[in-house]
C-alpha cells in the first residue's frame, strides 16, 4: 500500500493512530458529520511506522474536548489527539480510558435491564486499566469485549 497523504489543517483536531478501519466508527462516536465549517478529512489504512496501518481523522475548526475524545479509547486505545492552531500543534496527548462509559457500548448480557425498553442508557464502569476491563453498572456483568458492542 502506498503512503497516503492528507492535507494539514490550519485549526482543529487531528486524531491519529486510529486502529485501521475504525475511522468511520470514530466519526460516528464523536457525532461529527462534517459541514461547510467543520471540514473533515479521513485517511484509512494509511502506512504508519508504529502500527503498520492506521486511520487518521482531521476535523477543521473544532477543538475536541478530552472528555469527548477519551470515549474513543474504548474503540481504539492507542489513538493520539493533537490540537492545531495556526498550523501548530499546541497540545498532544493519547486518549485515556474513561472511568465511566455511558451510552457508548451496550452491555453484552442480553438479559440485562439496560438492553430492554427502559429510559436508561448503558453504563459501564472501569474495573481495571491495563488490561482494560469494564463491568456493567446495572447487572454487574464483566464485559468480555466492549469493542464488539459499540452502539
Amino acid at each position, binding site marked *: 500500500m502506498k503512503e497516503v497523504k492528507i492535507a494539514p489543517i490550519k485549526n482543529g483536531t487531528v486524531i491519529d493512530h486510529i486502529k485501521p478501519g475504525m475511522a468511520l466508527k470514530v466519526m460516528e462516536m464523536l457525532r461529527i458529520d462534517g459541514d461547510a465549517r467543520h471540514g473533515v478529512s479521513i485517511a484509512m489504512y494509511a502506512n504508519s511506522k508504529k502500527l503498520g496501518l492506521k486511520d487518521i481523522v482531521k476535523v477543521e475548526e473544532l477543538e475536541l474536548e478530552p472528555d469527548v475524545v477519551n470515549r474513543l479509547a474504548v474503540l481504539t486505545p492507542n489513538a493520539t489527539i493533537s490540537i492545531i492552531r495556526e498550523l501548530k500543534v499546541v497540545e498532544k496527548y493519547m486518549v485515556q480510558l474513561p472511568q465511566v462509559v455511558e451510552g457508548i457500548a451496550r*452491555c453484552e*448480557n442480553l*438479559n*440485562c*435491564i*439496560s438492553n*430492554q*425498553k*427502559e*429510559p*436508561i442508557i448503558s453504563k459501564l464502569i472501569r474495573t481495571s486499566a491495563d488490561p482494560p476491563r469494564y463491568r*456493567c*453498572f*446495572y*447487572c*454487574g*456483568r*464483566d464485559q468480555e469485549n466492549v469493542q464488539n458492542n459499540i452502539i
Partner: protein
Amino acid sequence: MTLKGRDIINIGDLELDEIELILDISKEMLPVARGEKRSRTLDGKVLASLFFEASTRTRLSFETAMHRLGGNVITITGQEGSSLIKGETLADTIRMADAYSDIIALRHPREGAARMSATFSSAPVINGGDGAGQHPTQTLLDLFTIREELGDIGKQNVTIVGDLRYGRTVHSLSLALGRMGATMTFVAPDMIQMPDHIISDLKGMGAKVKRTTDLKAEIPASDVIYMTRIQKERFAEEEEYRKVAGAYKLQVRMLDDAKKHMMIMHPLPRVDEIHPEIDSTRHAKYFAQAFNGVPVRMALLKLILEGE
C-alpha cells in the same frame, strides 16, 4: 454506621460490620417472627412488594416480615406483574410504587432491574432477586442460619454442591463466606464448577478453597453442606443430565460419617437433590433456613426504615 435509607442491591455493597449488624438485629427479631412477641415498630409504613416473576417463598417472607413489624403491604404478583411488564416500563412502575410506599421489595426476571429501580426511586429498594443476578437477602438468611446453628461463620468448613458456574447466588454466598473467613469446598462436575474468577477473588481475600467432583469424600469434614439444584437446561442431552445430577444427590446412608453437628442447607425449592428421608435427621436445616427469611427481612426493613 447506619443502613437507614439504603438500597440493598448486591451483598457486595454491604461492609462486613453492616452484615454483622443485620445478623444481630435478625436474632433480636426471632421472637416477633415466631409470633411470640408483638411489634408496632413499622406502624403506618408501607412496603411495595413488586414481584414480576413468581417466587412464593421470597414474597411471602417479605410480606410476613412487614406485617410482623406492624407495617402494611401493597403488592403486585404473578399475572399482574407479567402484564405490567408488557404494558409499561419498569421505571414507570417504580415511580408509581415510590409515590405509594416507603420501601420497595423487587423481584424481576431481568438482571440489573433492582439497580436500575434504585436510580428511579427515592424510597429504598431491596433486591429480592433479579434474573440470574443478585439475591442479597438469600445470602443474608443463609449466613444467619449458619451463625444461628453453629456460631462463628469464619470457623466453618462449608461444602457447596450443584450448579456453581451459573448460579450467581452461590457466587454471592461464597464471596460473603470468604470475607468472613470460612473454608469452602466446591463440589460439582467440571462443566458447572465454580468459575476461575470467583476462585481467584476468594484466594485474593485469603480464603481457603478447593474444587472437587466427589461429594461423598467431602461429607466427613464438612460443617455445612449447601445443596443447590442442577438445572436440566445446562445439559444438551437428558441422559447426560441424569448421570450428572444423580452423582450430586444426598441420601441418608451417605451421612454415616458426617460430623454430629453437620447441617444441610438448600435455598429451596428442591427437586430431588436431597432425599426426603433426610428431612427427619438432625442434619436437615433447610426448613429452618426458609423460616429465617422472615427475621432477616424484618431486620432489613427495620434498619432501612428506622435505623438502629
